């Protein structure tokens, strides 16, 4: 029973109300708690609490989703195109990128595209004569020639580079050459090793980009 003070207000919850509180959470979760309904019939305050919580739950469930601003898709789409996840009709093809006014970068692009096409077509490196001599091994002579030209251009321009930067480039290229040589040697014995092929492709990609970077740095007035 409720305990009412002289002013007509209850000063503390009754034992039944406390039990109601204790069972309420489970009741609202759908568990059987017959005491909740029974007490709600007797106690107006607890009945109000129960009805309110049921209303809150229903109202929250009835909230309609909000409409996002129209620019949201435009921003998402632009980022997806930028990352190459979708191809925009307006996006330049790789051949247009390769024809940019920087011939060095064009060479790097053609080299990379050619190598990746070669690797993707399942080309075999088994018959590569350069492997035994430890040289950079590319079956396609055009690709090998392009890479050689870039390296020669780098050697010429490296003279004018900051010594620290020059050493960094040389060590980096040596490291990539070693990676290429090792992978080629391994793949000549185990051509189907996917991870080794992945590393070989990655090494060529990085080498092309490092050379392009070095050539751009050696260009113009930066040193």
């Amino acid at each position: 029973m409720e305990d009412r003070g002289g002013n007509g207000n209850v000063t503390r919850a009754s034992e039944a109300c406390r039990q109601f509180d204790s069972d309420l959470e489970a009741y609202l979760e759908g568990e059987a708690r017959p005491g909740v309904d029974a007490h709600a019939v007797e106690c107006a305050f607890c009945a109000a609490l129960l009805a309110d919580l049921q209303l809150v739950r229903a109202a929250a469930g009835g909230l309609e989703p909000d409409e996002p601003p129209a620019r949201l898709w435009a921003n998402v789409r632009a980022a997806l195109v930028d990352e190459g996840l979708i191809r925009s009709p307006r996006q330049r093809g790789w051949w247009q990128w390769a024809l940019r006014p920087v011939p060095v970068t064009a060479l790097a692009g053609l080299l990379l595209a050619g190598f990746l096409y070669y690797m993707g077509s399942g080309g075999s490196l088994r018959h590569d004569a350069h492997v035994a001599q430890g040289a950079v091994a590319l079956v396609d002579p055009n690709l090998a020639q392009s890479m050689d030209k870039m390296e020669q251009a780098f050697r010429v321009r490296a003279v004018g580079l900051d010594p620290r930067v020059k050493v960094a480039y040389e060590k980096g290229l040596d490291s990539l050459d070693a990676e290429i040589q090792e992978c080629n040697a391994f793949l000549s014995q185990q051509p189907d090793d996917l991870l080794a092929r992945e590393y070989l492709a990655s090494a060529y990609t990085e080498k092309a980009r490092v050379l392009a970077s070095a050539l751009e740095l050696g260009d113009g007035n930066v040193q």
Partner: protein
Amino acid sequence: MAMFNKKWCASQRISVLGRRAVRTVLGRCGLVLLLVPSGLLGAAAGNQLEKTIQCIPTPRISISNPPGGVVVVRGWDKSEVHAVCLPATPKVTIDCDQVPARGDAEKVRFTTQVLDTQAGSQEKTVNYEIDIPSGASLEIYNPSGSVTVERVSGDDGVESVSGSVSVRDGAGHTSVTSLSGAIELIRPTGRVEATSITGDLRFTASESANVHAQTTSGAIFFDGDFVPLGEYVLSSYGGNMDVACPTSDSVELRARTVRGKVNNELRLKHAQPRSPSAPGNGFGVQNQGDATVELKSYSGTIHVHSRP
């Protein structure tokens, strides 16, 4: 007054070694802006140059320092860019451009200009110390000398050749490339791409949900959380890899190597791989396998151990 047309790309990420920051921001979005150089920075005592620019809370900041030097950029809570630049000698100077030319800047660019091309390397370096709004996005090209970026929540793009790079509390998309410099990321929360050919890559207290790290002969150290539905790809060719994984994290781990070794100290359940690829040297699931962790090396040792 020199006027020149430039394209300023909305996305300021440098993920390819081989482009200058200036050309990198000449992106593909087709927006053409006229940059009006505001001339030389105001000279303070000696060679030090100092400038304060009022800007919007999320400006785009770019620093192009081809001769190299020490670059420190810190995020702060003011809508101002405050730059202190120290050229080694008067043979080099700094241009500062802002767009728009008047009012709060939306873009600010610092470019080191060499005045005497015959000067030696050490005579042309410039050190930058810049405070920028923490919501700014940032693009730095600094081939030699260290780069430190702290508390920037916009996208960061840093390109170096021989210098080390340290990015702390980066909350945006962080993209860092260096040729021989070490790369350190402390408490990143945004997406991270880090590449060094011979330098080490170190992640400390990472909370990022997307990490791609690659090195050829450097080592990789990863100590951080593997967030549910996160994607982590760490690749080293010849260097070793050390990965600490909290025991409470939910990861699907694949470790592959061609000629190296995988030392796995985690207690993993072996389950069907979710990602389509060839089976590797080590695969397993910790807890529910919510994060995807891929560790690769050619000849380095991959060591995975637990962290409480």
